[in-house]
């Protein structure tokens, strides 16, 4: 079959490549008529075609933009183009996805997501109930009892009902038609004009496989659909949802020259002194939600304010709200190349979760020469040896500030940073919680002073 040049449908003069009796050519013609009826300009129309016989449609429309995609992904590619056009561009694109039941099967998630989001595009689902191009295999849209090359005795799995599926996605427009229906062009035009996601399922019989395997012709299609509980016509048409791009633009309007917020407003101008001669590695470990990583970040920020180099790595279990929380901090007067913490100089432990984790990692066995452990008093019975200091971190401070307290105590003992650098770092990083963190540093420093006066606290436990 060939068609002559046709100004009335955007169809060119290429021969239609489909088998005699196939509905695909008819759908293309109805689409062209619909586009003309809508008064659209060729330059604003994008035809996004999927894989399969339906994907041969592109050259039939020589003046439209055509995008032939990979199998099943046509809807996602089209959605990206539509969102770029409607949010970032002029918003004049009309994107029509040409997909088969095979593409709809493998790309189902792209269809449901576009429907859920209500992306303003139109899907023409050419449902001939099997994969035609690859030899007539059954798809998720093959009706029960329908014979295909891979279900020669008839399919025994029910077909996916696009109408019910799209109702579940709150889609705004769904129609089911036969390719031969006289009103098909009107229905396609309504779908394209619909402001949001619209899908037209067009039932066809594949003349290459569906017809011979089922000994039926196109006239039997209506009865087949009805027997399978599929009703024809425009089944969903609701206008209570706005298209995605409208909602998006309202939520996230383009700023009118407003500068982005910048960080670091609380930074002091002064540079602090430090006494670090060589790199120092500190492991801070405690329980999730107890601001362990904040404490480590404050130590890093204090180092930055003291013109030291620093790296911080955080670790936590997959359940972010339970179990351990751990940070490794490395500080150095020179640029830090290797970021591993193989031999920590200090391990700070504020809870049993933290202790379990540092034991698992082996940090206590890898402690560097002269390394120290500062831990909460509750762990005293499990920790002993030189360099272990247990203090009432959680009791004298609070579970939330114990880690910062441990950092302040370590700093007080080894004097690597000025105490004011820690306080200034809190000013940089902390918002509303600033006063509590500053108090924690002061309390911790006095704890450290008491411990120094009472060496029994140290070791031997």
């Amino acid at each position, binding site marked *: 079959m060939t068609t002559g040049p046709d100004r009335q449908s955007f169809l060119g003069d290429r021969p239609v490549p489909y088998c005699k009796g196939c509905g695909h050519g008819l759908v293309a013609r109805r689409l062209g008529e619909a586009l003309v009826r809508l008064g659209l300009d060729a330059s604003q129309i994008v035809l996004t075609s999927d894989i399969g016989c339906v994907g041969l449609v592109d050259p039939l429309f020589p003046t439209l933009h055509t995008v032939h995609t990979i199998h099943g992904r046509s809807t996602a590619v089209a959605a990206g183009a539509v969102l770029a056009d409607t949010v970032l561009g002029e918003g004049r694109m009309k994107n029509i996805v040409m997909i088969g039941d095979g593409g709809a099967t493998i790309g189902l998630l792209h269809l449901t997501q576009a429907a859920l989001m209500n992306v303003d595009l139109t899907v023409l689902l050419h449902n001939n109930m099997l994969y035609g191009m690859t030899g007539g295999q059954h798809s998720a849209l093959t009706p029960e009892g329908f014979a295909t090359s891979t279900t020669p005795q008839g399919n025994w799995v029910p077909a996916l009902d696009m109408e019910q599926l799209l109702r579940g996605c709150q889609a705004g427009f769904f129609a089911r038609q036969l390719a031969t229906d006289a009103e098909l062009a009107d229905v396609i035009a309504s779908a394209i004009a619909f402001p949001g996601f619209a899908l037209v399922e067009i039932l066809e019989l594949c003349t290459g496989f569906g017809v011979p395997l089922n000994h039926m012709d196109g006239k039997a299609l209506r009865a087949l659909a009805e027997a399978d509980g599929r009703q024809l016509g425009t089944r969903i048409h609701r206008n209570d949802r706005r298209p995605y791009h409208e909602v998006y633009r309202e939520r996230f309007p383009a700023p009118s020259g407003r500068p982005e917020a910048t960080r670091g407003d609380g930074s002091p101008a002064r540079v602090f002194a430090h006494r670090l001669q060589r790199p120092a590695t500190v492991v801070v470990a405690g329980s999730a939600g107890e601001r362990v990583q904040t404490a480590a970040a404050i130590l890093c920020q204090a180092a930055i304010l003291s013109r030291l180099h620093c790296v911080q790595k955080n670790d936590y279990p997959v359940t972010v709200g339970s179990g351990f929380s751990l940070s490794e901090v490395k500080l150095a007067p020179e640029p830090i190349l*290797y970021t591993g913490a193989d031999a920590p100089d200090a391990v700070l432990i504020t809870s049993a979760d933290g202790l379990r984790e540092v034991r698992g990692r082996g940090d206590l066995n890898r402690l560097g020469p002269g390394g120290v452990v500062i831990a909460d008093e509750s762990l005293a019975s499990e920790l002993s040896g030189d360099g272990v200091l247990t203090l009432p971190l959680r009791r004298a401070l609070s579970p939330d500030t114990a880690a910062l307290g441990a950092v302040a105590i370590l700093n007080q003992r080894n004097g690597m940073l000025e105490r004011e650098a820690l306080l200034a770092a809190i000013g940089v990083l902390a918002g509303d919680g600033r006063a509590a963190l500053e108090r924690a540093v002061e309390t911790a420093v006095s704890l450290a002073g008491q411990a120094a006066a009472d060496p029994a606290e140290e070791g031997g436990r």
Partner: protein
Amino acid sequence: MATDIRAESAPSSLTLRSGNQMVAEGALRAGCRFFSGYPITPASEIYREMTVRLQARGDVALGAPDEISALCYCIGASQRGAKAMTATSGPGWALMIEAFQYALMTETPVVVVLVQRLGPSTGGATQGAQGDVLLAEFATSGGYTVPVFAPSTPVECFTLTMEAFSWSEALRTPVVVLSDKEVAMTYEAVDLARLPEVPVHARPMASAEGYRPVRFGALDEVPPFAPLAGSLKVTLTGSAHNKDGWLRKNDAETLDVLRHLEAKVDARARDMAMVTRDLQEDADALVVSYGITSRAAREAVRLGRAAGRRLSFLGLLTLFPIPVEAIREAARTVRRVVVAEENLSGLYRKVLGGALPDLEWHGVNTLGRMIRPAEILEAL
């Protein structure tokens, strides 16, 4: 790498930033206006950062229902003319591979940030790895060269993401930023006020005069781009196609288009070569590395020299196209070349051995943990 920025920086402008955050910073600086992502450790921070930052600008950040969607959204957006990026890790990359080749075939610019970890999705989300290096490069069918850039610091995450956009746009080809968990999720001091300037090439744009959908003369020319919904008719297909963009099998013009996809990248291999050199006259051994391990390698060289060894270091920021000349030059005087990387069988070393077969290659390899400087020094 790890340049001392403190001397010139006011402490007030230094801030802790992760590699992931600096990828986002680089993308925004490069003009990225469309991001789509799907959660996966260790890349999720890019997704979050891009979402917050793009939405604040009124640009598009989109959560996808899977990684295939994420890349396809980006491809569609880029075909409309937007600079687009997605970020993932190995398990998500596995899903993206077909769409990635589709971008290559349709000459659609897009940047994919691949943050390596142990795979599969149940494999070890928070353990670093450098095991996707060949999966990134050889993901496409046909032997095309995919530009792959590998940062080792937060600042390099910034600069290489910009380079990725620059080359992706200029060549109209997808580009991979190959990060790794230890680079991506480690926070370091960055001076946001003094980030390096990286010029970003523009996508060549088509005009009506002489327009064809895939227009090039010499094979290595980049066809000018026409956006979807513009005045010039766009014809795109992932199938082999002629210069009109129509599916053809093996006519001469179609085979030219296929060769052109490689030629345009290959012709610019020298311009794309980015390395960090720390070479020593008369060195007897050279260590070549990339990503997080290149920092341990440089430390190993520093330690070795302090002990009287003559050693050279070459950090590769461009992994593909392989910076062959830079490696040959660095290896000029050495007996042996050691490649340090976090994968069991020395994936990148294998392609280096193929590209430079006359050198004597050795490997330092681990899995599931970082390589230590001492281990590299021992092999040198």
